[in-house]
């Protein structure tokens, strides 16, 4: 039997899980996240593999909030030089113009816009100004630890970015870190450039995360392939994660939804993840979270990552319930993880939604039911009516059609989800739902994607889409997917207005289980 380990480091808890080759859960643990997260990782790992033959463990996956926290807290970030290959085009908005000042001060080194880049049809805007790239490299030497390179339409034509990277290597040596925008993001120059600069600044954090993870594995006697989960719920190899940390920023909610999907054995369903403070609702389409169309801001910087489309509200196990003058109000504040001490049923003095749940019998085995005997039935009913209505509205807002579909309830507060929700066929409560995020990491697949402009007039729509599918599948296989099991998970076409030749932006994603 071969096993995989999945670990998820969240703000409150570090969860670990071991699954076998069939995806069955062999062991699971939940413990508090520690000030140095690696203590928690090491500890959870030790606990979860107790009694398991470490020789049988072949792969380990980590989902972590490290890089996201580094940006939010402006901690451990490196200084970056930013060069855009675009002149004389794209001078109207310099790199970093819309960034928050403190982040700019922390990260941004020299910036320049030099000759280079391509038009929408692939012709150069200008020849690459190699001398200017060399001068930029010289200016960066000793002042920054990495350089971010961007260029218009580089997702389609990237020879200028690659040549500029080569020149920087010639000038500053092969050890000097360079991030190229076509490897990081999709169409939308400013957002892709922002992501590339953030990526370059996170390279140090990424090395810490990956080496910390690998050290924890080694200390536990595990000789395995290691991976980090990325925003779309698929995997980056440890080597790739060291180079593209920005792709891991939003993996938390994705892991939870992918885990819920697999634990429940459903590919198309709504997912509600209820914690202590808030509830998130998302939707799974073909086993992957539907992605948001809104621009995603990371630490105040606009990027064009695709993140799960989620609705969040203040509804959790620790949400405070109040009675004032015969009226019952719920939240939005919460006692959070302190629900274990502050809730009435635990001997505390705050009426929370968990108390209501215990009072009406939705939650058992959490404290003493006698302690909520004084709560009136009317209060319970009013609070529950509010909860049920919120969950109904969230589920309805998320659904793509009028058709009823299943709702998977996961997370420590999921007892609040009623058994009957309008527009929902059934409420599914899978086993191990409390560690759905670690499970999502453990079962994650390898993926590849492309985002490019095709001109259907040249070769026809079918041939163009076929090429796009092949490119995405090849990228997934390069990332480790089993060539026999790789499949296309999404195809998105957006016609470009005013552009001749039936130009169309095509985004394709492919994924598959890791090759054995």
């Amino acid at each position: 039997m071969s096993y995989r380990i999945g670990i998820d480091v969240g703000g409150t808890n570090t969860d670990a899980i071991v699954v076998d080759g069939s995806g069955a859960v062999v062991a699971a643990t939940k413990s508090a996240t520690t000030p140095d997260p690696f203590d928690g990782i090491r500890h959870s790992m030790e606990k979860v593999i107790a009694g398991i033959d470490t020789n049988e463990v072949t792969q380990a996956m980590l989902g972590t909030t490290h890089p996201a926290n580094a940006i939010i807290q402006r901690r451990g970030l490196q200084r970056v030089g930013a060069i855009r290959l675009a002149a004389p085009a794209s001078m109207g908005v310099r790199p970093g113009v819309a960034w928050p000042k403190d982040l700019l001060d922390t990260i941004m080194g020299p910036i320049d816009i030099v000759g280079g880049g391509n038009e929408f049809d692939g012709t150069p805007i200008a020849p690459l100004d190699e001398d200017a790239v060399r001068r930029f490299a010289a200016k960066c030497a000793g002042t920054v630890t990495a350089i971010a390179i961007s260029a218009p339409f580089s997702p389609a034509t990237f020879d200028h970015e690659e040549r500029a990277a080569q020149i920087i290597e010639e000038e500053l040596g092969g050890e000097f870190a360079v991030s190229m925008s076509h490897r990081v993001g999709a169409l939308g120059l400013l957002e892709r450039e922002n992501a590339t600069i953030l990526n370059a600044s996170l390279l140090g954090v990424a090395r810490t995360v990956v080496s910390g993870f690998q050290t924890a594995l080694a200390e536990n006697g595990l000789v395995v392939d290691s991976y980090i989960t990325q925003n779309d719920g698929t995997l980056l190899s440890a080597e790739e994660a060291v180079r593209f940390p920005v792709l891991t920023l939003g993996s938390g909610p994705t892991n939870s939804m992918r885990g819920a999907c697999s634990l429940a054995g459903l590919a198309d369903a709504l997912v509600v993840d209820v914690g202590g403070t808030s509830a998130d609702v998302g939707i799974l389409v073909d086993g992957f979270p539907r992605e948001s169309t809104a621009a995603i801001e990371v630490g105040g910087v606009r990027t064009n990552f695709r993140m799960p489309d989620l609705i969040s509200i203040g509804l959790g196990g620790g949400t405070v319930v109040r009675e004032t003058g015969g009226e019952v109000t719920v939240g939005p504040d919460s006692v959070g993880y302190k629900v274990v001490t502050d809730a009435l049923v635990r001997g505390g003095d705050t009426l929370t939604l968990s108390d209501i749940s215990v009072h009406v019998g939705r939650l058992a085995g959490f404290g003493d039911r006698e302690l909520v005997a004084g709560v009136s039935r009317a209060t319970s009913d009013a609070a529950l009516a509010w909860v049920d209505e919120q969950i109904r509205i969230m589920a309805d807002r998320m659904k793509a059609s009028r058709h009823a579909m299943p709702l998977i309830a996961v997370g420590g507060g999921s007892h609040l989800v009623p058994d009957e929700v309008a527009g929902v066929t059934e409420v599914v409560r899978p086993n191990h739902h409390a560690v759905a995020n670690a499970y999502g990491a453990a079962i994650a697949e390898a993926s590849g994607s492309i985002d490019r402009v095709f001109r259907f007039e040249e070769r026809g729509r079918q041939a163009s889409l076929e090429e796009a599918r092949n490119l995405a599948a090849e990228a997934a296989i390069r990332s480790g997917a089993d060539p026999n099991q790789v499949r296309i998970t999404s195809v998105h076409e957006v016609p470009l207005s005013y552009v001749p030749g039936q130009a169309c932006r095509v985004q394709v994603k492919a994924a598959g289980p890791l090759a054995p």
Partner: protein
Amino acid sequence: MRKVDSADLDQLTLGATLLGTGGGGDPFIAKLMVEQAIQDFGAIDVATLDELDEDDLVATVAVLGAPTVIVEKIPSGPEFTNAVRALAAYLGKEIKAIMPVEVGGMNTLIPLAVATELGVPCVDADGMRRAFPQIEMTAFTLAGLSASPMSLADEKGNKVTFETTSNQVGEKLVRGSAMMLGLANAVSLYPMTVRQAKDAAVWGSMQYCSDLGRLLRAVQHQEDGAWDQLLEFTEGVVAFEGKIIDLDRRTTTGFARGTVTIEDFVDPGRTMRIEIQNELLLAIADGRAVVTPPDLICMLDHETSEPITTETLAYGQRVRVLALPCAPEFKRGNWLDVVGPKAFGYDVDYVSLEG
């Protein structure tokens, strides 16, 4: 004359997004360009038509190309000043002020950046007070003004100036040239005196846009009475509220066409269909045209009241459709032929929002 500074750009950008009626290019990039122009050249003087000499020459300036190209190949700045200078050189006269051709979408803000770089005021007026896909679809055309001579420029220094017999031919010539020049170009057109502008332009459209942005922000912050104030200010109506149940995009022509279908929250038997040609153009409820061009169809996220652009439309979005009456300056001459439903190929009659 008032000064527009970085702090004023937020509500102007939000208003421009709403007046873009789903299209008109991303005003966010234009906002960043204006912020940089203010850093480099200082705050912008915005003048009403009354504050300028009647004999002064004014020209409009706009980015012309494909919104999806512009997000990759961001404008530079000199192409706009080059277009204006080429036009002035052709006319042999000095251009004393810059005016937006459309207050709606990214072309609302671009003229501000150009004005400060040129050191001239930007006029608080325009030709549409919304966004339309073609350059001849303006109140200027309806007042009998020529869009030409017009100058198109790219960031590399290429310039071309056209004299045309009609504004429709002008549209074809600049569009064709833009395709050869990278589809992210600057155009300066509709040169006119302030006297002519007083008669032909939509007055106060920048202020209108800014006020609209401020009122919409209040709606987003759920301030008391904000919705009523927005509807009162615009004389608009909420035309429909529901959920997107179908989205059909077509690539048959150069324009991004499509149809979006919305189903009423309460009564699934009631639907609204909105036809898209870059912008949201025509709304049909229960088989009957209810909002027709040149009136405006604005789609807002039902929860956040954030305007939704046609590129980000998706199944399942919960939306509120707002119908706003067009600027009254549109309604003259052969307006129905130029900006009415038939100008966009729809075989329906114009329906006034006043019923």
